[in-house]
């Protein structure tokens, strides 16, 4: 398939891995920011091709994982209301709140729907004017344009029974928070390609310079990630710290201007709590005053909900790259994909789930390749 199998080519991947081994002379810690990249690394076994000196630290870029427990609890409260149809992306349904998840709410009679686009939720609202429709608008810069567009369309068309529980988060402030956190070990970043497809990468040169850390805009297929790593190692070995675009088939410097305009029109920057990390200043988006009527938090009076994380869960340290998932004592014991304590065990992009699902706690005996036909 075009643009897919080309970037999963085995011999080319081996070639890139050889090149990385050749240029690596000492240990380096590189963080892939995006959960989609973590998923691809573990699913394809990319880390197994790397020399032992290269450590990949799995970053906080999974929107499902970093959405604060409090926001999940608010979603659960709204979804349980009798007159509400609650629409969400699929992988939010299994994220545990304090007591349950959206699947439980659904089984108890809540009208919870999986949608593939926030505009589908607007359309549902238009067709069913007697019910309130709430879209769970989470995500990084990647999902923000569609979410902003949904609110804008609802306002334009006067669809008053639509609202959004918005909890957007932003990558650049998270990179800053990681670089300034005590005990940080990250020396270079693979920036999230899809975030940059929307935002461009004009925000990154000051960060690379300020923290002396190479930032490589990186895609999601095995060859993309290996190339991102190769460029990061090349810079680290040469003592450089600049921004490079290794995902040029999708990303340019300016980004998607119309998308940025609709975000700017609908959202404004705000301080945001990150699950397991805490509040990062100016790290999120919320609806602007002009769109406040579409804010589900205001409409449904859930502002007073306050909650606490499980004391066993160390997802925060995982998200900041301080421990690997299997180094958490609860991993595979109290915490499994079936009974997750933290969201990193839920989302397929979450580092803990990726480790658990793809068996990173088990050593496989090698097997002979099957006969090709």
């Amino acid at each position, binding site marked *: 398939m075009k643009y897919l199998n080309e970037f999963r080519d085995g011999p080319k991947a*081996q070639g890139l891995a050889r090149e990385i081994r050749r240029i690596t002379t000492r240990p380096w810690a590189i963080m892939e920011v995006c959960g989609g990249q973590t998923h691809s690394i573990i699913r394809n076994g990319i880390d197994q091709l790397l020399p032992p000196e290269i450590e990949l630290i799995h970053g906080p870029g999974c929107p499902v994982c970093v959405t604060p427990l409090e926001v999940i609890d608010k979603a659960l409260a709204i979804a349980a209301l009798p007159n509400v149809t609650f629409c969400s992306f699929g992988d939010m349904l299994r994220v545990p709140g304090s007591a349950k998840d959206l699947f439980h709410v659904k089984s108890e009679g809540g009208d919870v729907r999986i949608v593939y686009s926030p505009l589908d939720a607007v359309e549902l609202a238009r067709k069913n004017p007697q019910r309130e429709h709430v879209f769970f608008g989470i995500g990084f810069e990647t999902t923000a344009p569609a979410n902003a567009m949904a609110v804008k369309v609802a306002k334009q068309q006067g669809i008053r029974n639509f609202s959004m529980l918005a909890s957007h988060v932003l990558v650049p402030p998270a990179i800053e928070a990681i670089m300034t956190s005590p005990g940080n070990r990250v020396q270079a970043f693979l920036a999230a390609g899809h975030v940059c497809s929307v935002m461009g990468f004009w925000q990154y040169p000051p960060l690379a310079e300020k923290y002396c850390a190479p930032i490589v805009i990186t895609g999601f297929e095995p060859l993309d990630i290996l190339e991102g790593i190769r460029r990061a190692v090349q810079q680290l070995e040469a003592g450089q710290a600049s921004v490079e675009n290794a995902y040029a088939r999708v990303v340019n410097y300016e980004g998607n201007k119309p998308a940025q305009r609709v975000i700017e029109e609908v959202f404004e920057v705000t301080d945001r709590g990150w699950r397991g990390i805490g509040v990062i200043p100016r790290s999120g988006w919320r609806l602007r005053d002009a769109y406040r009527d579409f804010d589900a938090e205001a409409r449904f009076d859930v502002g007073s909900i306050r909650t606490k994380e499980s004391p066993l869960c160390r997802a925060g340290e995982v998200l900041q790259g301080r421990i690997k998932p299997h180094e958490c004592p609860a991993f595979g014991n109290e915490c499994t994909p079936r009974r997750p304590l933290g969201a990193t065990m839920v989302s397929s992009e979450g580092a803990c789930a990726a480790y658990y699902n793809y068996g990173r706690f088990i050593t496989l005996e090698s097997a002979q390749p099957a006969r*090709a036909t």
Partner: protein
Amino acid sequence: MSEDIDFGAWTCPLPLQDYPRIVIGHGGGGKLSAELVEHLFLPAFQNAALSALGDASVLSLPPGRVAFTTDSFVVRPLFFPGGSIGDLAVNGTVNDLAMSGAQPLYLSAGFIIEEGLPMATLGGVVERMAAAARNAGVQLVTGDTKVVGKGHGDGLYINTAGIGVIPSGVQLGPNLARPGDCVLVSGTIGDHGMAIMSAREGLEFESVIRSDCAALNTLVEAILEFPEEVHVLRDPTRGGVAATLNEIARQSKVGIVLEEGSIPIEPDVQAACEVLGLDPLHVANEGKLIAIVAANAAASILGRMRQHPLGSRTTVIGQVTEGNPGMLAARTSIGGMRIVPLQIGEQLPRIC
């Protein structure tokens, strides 16, 4: 959805025409029920055992061990590209029988119908069931109809049970995979699950993804020309190839290693899986089988399967190992290894 379907040649027979939709009375055991049986089910499924209309059908079976299975079908939408709930209800049970090595013979059909279902929809489903049964060479010999109130069902649910007879010399079972065996799949994976998801959610891709729904009993007959060398046959339906092979690995106490790059998949299905963040190994199939066979006969069995229209893309996708008993692993296309686990529930589409 069902309103969009062209039911082709099906025309509502008198006196069912008086009721364009199913009413509660159609399940009441009275005149309306009798009309439904007489004018819809009997003409469609016509055979002597059914026409006797006794409380039970009385059947004679050829010699051999009897295989018996049941399955319920709740698919939505009722009609989808490549099939319908009727095709699934027949082929699903036929395939379950065939995977035990049995020759499928007789099926039952129980219909739970929601009040208000268009008569034409039920008629279309029954037509498809009858065609599927003829195609698979089985007879629908007993049945039941219940009607539930509006809002208490999802249009139509169907349960089928089936019996078949296993010829002597055939010994298949999910516990019989042995180290060294080859794992064959009879064609592309993930077609049914992605066809249903696309139809259900109104997802549009460049071309329509069609379900692979098909009866596999004649393909199984071809495979069983090598009775000694075939150890396990399974159809990877719910949970896909991953769930089926995990179960076999556990029950046979062996490891299974897949070569991910060799698994056949239609480009459209792969694209749809990528868009939604789904792993095709976990997506359902309704017209494919997994055969685990002795390595020395793998090439012959593969050749025989490829001669069959439903097995033309048969491929060796992996190997049974002594190591890692109970586990399914995959060698990725770039040469890494990963575990392929059982899913907790359904796969969930990813956010971005």
